[in-house]
């Protein structure tokens, strides 16, 4: 079903994906990158997660390259190395600066304000162009279950990244245990956050098995790419 219209319109040449740690940002970013290729775009995915070296976009290089996506990974993230050193590559700024036209850049940012600090260094390049900053919300993620906690988390991310969020996406899920009720509760919660922040809720993510149900928000069907070795 691909990217729903509301979400597609909310995307810009440079789109940052931010949110609380562990809500599902990387899986969302990888889906978005692959689906944008399907829309005919040339896509660069920047893995800017340098605060936690586990379950990040760089682990998906093979999948991304199969889809013709250019992955910009942290310096020590690959070739089997897991050196726990927050180090950014010189490829990031040029990728941001050359975004536009048919070239789309998605930046998968690390969790919370801690993960967003790395964005701050590029804020002036990003602001110089047209950008979107999408905050991913998951009503079922511990510590941000109250809408006010999610709002506070987003404010902290905005301060650390020196950028303003432009849209919200609900990615309410309990991994394989996601049900219709989970998605629906997630949307109610995301709307409360959207009202408090005065930001548009542009889509609700659902697993492919739940796309037949209609909700009062655009659905974005996500494949589960980020998974444990036995899943």
């Amino acid at each position: 079903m691909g990217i729903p219209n509301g979400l597609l319109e909310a995307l810009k040449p440079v789109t940052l994906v931010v949110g609380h740690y562990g809500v599902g940002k990387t899986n969302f970013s990888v889906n978005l990158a692959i689906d944008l290729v399907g829309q005919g775009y040339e896509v660069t995915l920047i893995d800017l997660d340098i605060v936690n070296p586990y379950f990040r976009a760089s682990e998906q290089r093979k999948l991304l390259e199969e889809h013709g996506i250019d992955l910009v990974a942290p310096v020590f993230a690959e070739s089997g190395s897991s050196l726990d050193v927050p180090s950014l590559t010189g490829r990031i700024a040029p990728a941001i600066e050359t975004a536009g036209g048919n070239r789309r850049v998605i930046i998968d940012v690390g969790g919370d304000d801690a993960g967003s600090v790395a964005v701050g260094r590029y804020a002036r390049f990003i602001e110089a162009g047209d950008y979107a900053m999408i905050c991913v919300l998951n009503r079922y993620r511990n510590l941000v279950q109250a809408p006010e906690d999610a709002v506070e988390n987003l404010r902290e991310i905005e301060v650390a990244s020196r950028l303003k969020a432009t849209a919200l996406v609900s990615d309410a899920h309990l991994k394989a245990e996601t049900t219709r009720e989970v998605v629906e509760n997630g949307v109610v919660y995301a709307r409360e956050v959207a009202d408090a922040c005065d930001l548009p809720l542009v889509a609700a993510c659902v697993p492919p098995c739940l796309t037949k149900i209609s909700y009062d928000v655009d659905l974005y069907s996500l494949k589960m790419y980020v998974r444990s070795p036995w899943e």
Partner: protein
Amino acid sequence: MAEKVLMKGNEAIAESAIRAGCRFFFGYPITPQTELAAYMAKRMPKEGGTYLQAESEVAAINMVYGASAAGARVMTSSSSPGVSLKSEGVSYIAGADLPCLIINIERGGPGLGSIQPSQSDYWQATRALGHGDFQMVVYAPSTVQEMADLAYGAFDIADKYRTPVMILGDGMLGQMMEPVELPEPRTELPEKPWATTGHGNKREKNIANSLYLVAEELEKTNFERFERYEVIKANEQMSEEVDCEDADIIVVAFGASSRIARSAVRAAREEGIKAGLFRPITLWPFPTDALKATVGKAKAYLSVEMNMGQMVDDVRLVVEGAAPVDFYGRTGGVIPTPAEVLDKIRQINEGLGE
């Protein structure tokens, strides 16, 4: 029923410990355990508890020693190299017969090793983490839910037997996310008449100590402690069995590698190979009784571990040569795949036909 939430293993342990009445956490950051400490830093002040980042692992475990002596529910957490640093303090705590919870979210070793998941501290955890005659109860959860449940119950076991308890996890379990139903917060905690809380001239003084200048006295405390270990061995063994009743090949695996083994066993069954999974949940006491019950029925055993072969010793001690006990493992932070384990099961199965 409480609503499920999505949590990392590290966070689930921390939240569950708080709900079990733990109000003191002393630690030092190390990957892949750091979220546990970070979570405690965020949550403890809200519960009126103490989170303290010590100047070192050695300091942290000695703070645990002090808080435990004073009767508190207390814990520390670290990853492999940091746990080694704590070993002297753990021995003191065991020697003073004090309860506490120690978390080891293992990474590849030896040395600084890697920050990827590993199970290579099995020997260290089960053979005694530190010098002297002692053991401690060691739990090996395999899901985020089990991390929460075992952390919650571990404090009761620690208090009941006055012993340090360890949860042995690994970087995979600590970092991965699963839905969890968290336990209800404890409202009542057990009395600790032995705690050093001030005698107020109303009772004999309590002393927390592991120094004995008379050899016979030290021997006596060791004898008493080992009598307690026999009670623990009789009452606290935990394990899970999947399709073991009619199994020709029993795969023995704990923690994250049991998740991989489970997938492999399921695939083997689909191919018509009679495989089963035996999963120790307590590593000490090793679930000898339950595994022993399979001996004589199974034709072969396979221990699957993320190390060079450590638990396989305990499996062999139980099987006592009644059937071959094979080993498959990856080490250094490499995670075995279900396909690799399935291949090994197939090989063993072919050998059975000969």
